[in-house]
């Protein structure tokens, strides 16, 4: 115990004697650790944001689109093969589905008063709201009766309501959409997400859509839709449903056994894991950049420790003459290096965390500081101290006491 106290006070004195030097060394580590935490928190924050936005699209959601679908790239071919009839067949033949909603999306001009705006208008069935997890803030979504009777009603996204109607209550207002006039019956809750956000969309009954925009037909006479979305009754059946939908569609489209699917099925889970992978790579990349600065900080520690050993050669000689073993000497220098990086690590966590919170609250970017990152950053900082402190410490312990005493 007494020995430990002596040891600690020795290390402490070594550090406080050179306050500025210790401070600069620590600063290098602080910058390294803080940048690891900030960059990793940005990476994790954006991952979380994307996952949340996907979750808001609706759990257990499966989306079927025509053609081969490459994520983040161009939708290849855009072959219009998916039809209303396909959607009805899926609803009839595939089990474990709670709702199916075919939809056809087109860009149309909306006009109200002296304002006009282009919007993605989606014609769909009443099930669409439940399937895609939409919420109504005002009014209502159109119902089955309105759908079947081709009633010209529209449900508009929060941004559309804001941009087109401003302070006027949109409910009950007539607006022009392409060639027809529709009555607004509902406004959607703002979701505030960027990924396929319903905030900028307008929803009308698919039957009305077919009148407004000449909905194209396949050579066989099928009414083409752009998307079929459906909800699986229970998450555990997701794969079954995907398999069943695939076989129903392949047989309806008369594809030979060797032909590729002419449609694409995506579950929320798949999209999530795909995006997670992408943002994971991003996080890793950011972390790697930050790790380089941590490495530079570590080299700074080594540099200072080498100087410190050189400068204290005589002290090492004195200590050895007084009975210090090699282990006493190297543990002193190693502990000194580890203490520098540990202190730097702790301060770095505080600084990094603080800046992450500031970035988040200022609204520049979403950040998320996880406990893992903190332990990782501090652990790596100490490891760097031990790693880069080892060589100088070993050098110090191997000094010949006679020569060390003779040095100036």
């Amino acid at each position: 115990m007494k020995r430990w106290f002596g040891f600690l006070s020795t290390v402490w004195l070594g550090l406080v004697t050179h306050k500025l030097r210790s401070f600069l060394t620590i600063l290098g580590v602080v910058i390294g650790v803080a940048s690891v935490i900030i960059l990793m928190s940005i990476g994790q924050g954006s991952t979380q944001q994307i996952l949340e936005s996907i979750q808001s699209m609706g759990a257990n959601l499966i989306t079927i689109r025509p053609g081969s679908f490459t994520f983040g790239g161009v939708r290849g071919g855009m072959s219009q093969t998916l039809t209303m009839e396909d959607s009805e067949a899926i609803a009839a033949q595939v089990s474990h589905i709670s709702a199916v909603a075919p939809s056809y999306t087109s860009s149309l001009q909306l006009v109200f008063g002296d304002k006009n705006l282009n919007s993605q208008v989606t014609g769909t069935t009443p099930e669409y709201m439940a399937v895609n997890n939409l919420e109504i803030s005002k009014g209502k979504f159109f119902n089955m009766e309105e759908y079947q009777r081709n009633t010209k009603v529209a449900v508009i996204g929060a941004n559309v309501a804001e941009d087109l109607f401003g302070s006027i209550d949109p409910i009950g207002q007539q607006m022009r959409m392409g060639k027809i006039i529709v009555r607004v019956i509902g406004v959607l809750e703002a979701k505030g997400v960027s990924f396929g956000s319903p905030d900028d969309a307008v929803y009308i009954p698919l039957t009305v859509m077919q009148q407004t925009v000449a909905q194209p037909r396949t050579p066989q006479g099928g009414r083409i839709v752009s998307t079929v979305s459906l909800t699986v009754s229970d998450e555990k059946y997701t794969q079954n449903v995907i398999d069943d939908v695939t076989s129903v569609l392949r047989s309806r489209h008369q594809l030979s056994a060797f032909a590729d699917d002419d449609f694409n099925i995506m579950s929320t889970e798949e999209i999530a894991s795909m995006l997670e992978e992408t943002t994971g790579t991003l996080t890793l990349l950011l972390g790697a950049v930050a790790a380089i600065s941590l490495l530079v900080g570590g080299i700074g520690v080594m540099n200072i420790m080498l100087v410190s050993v050189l400068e204290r050669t005589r002290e090492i000689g004195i200590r050895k003459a007084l009975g210090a073993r090699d282990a006493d000497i190297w543990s002193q220098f190693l502990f000194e290096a580890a203490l520098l990086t540990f202190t730097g690590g702790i301060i770095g966590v505080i600084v990094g965390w603080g800046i992450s919170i500031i970035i988040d609250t200022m609204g520049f970017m979403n950040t998320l500081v996880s406990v893992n990152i903190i332990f990782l950053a501090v652990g790596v900082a100490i490891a760097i101290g031990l790693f880069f402190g080892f060589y100088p410490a070993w050098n110090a312990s191997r000094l010949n006491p006679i020569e060390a005493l003779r040095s100036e």
Partner: protein
Amino acid sequence: MIKLEKIVKTYPMGKRELTVLNGINLEIKQGELVAIMGPSGSGKTTMLNLLGCLDVPSSGSYRLEGREVSRLGGRELAQLRGEKIGFIFQTFNLLSRLTALANVELGMTYAGGVDRKRALEALDKVGLSERVSHRPIELSGGEQQRVAIARAIVKNPALFLADEPTGQLDSKSGGEVISILTSLNTEHGITLIVVTHDANIASHCQRIIHLMDGEIIGEETR
């Protein structure tokens, strides 16, 4: 207590070997006050380094309190230095950033642990109880050397080794240091070996050993 037999120490000098000590035989008893004298290059310092377990001889036998030292490894040598040897250097070798008290405590760090009470007692013995919290730079040369003596006596070593202890002191403070060292010997029975040029120190010693070119060329006893 100390027995040197046929001690040879050589250092490599390029391709040749330089023989610094050449067949030293010497016996020193408990409680003796011995001076080793000789011109520069006679091997005094090398001998002191061997006696102080800072180095081992190339051949020959060195027994300290019956224990053979010449074949020990670095770890055991360090332990022996910590427990048995008290060094007093010409240049004091205090740590400049530590106070007098902390410097004395440093002497105990590697020899069983720090005991503040004993450190204060040791400083009192050398007459520095008023200066415990001064740093070396605030002390005179004589006072610094007395701190160094306190640092050596605090761990009760079997053997005191002093290398030109008054070499950097004026005659007055040198005299004080000499009187402290001799009183340690006479009052506490401490074994003390002093390497010196200074005939004044040698005159206080019971035995004077003369070295020349790595060999003992004469011995006086009073």
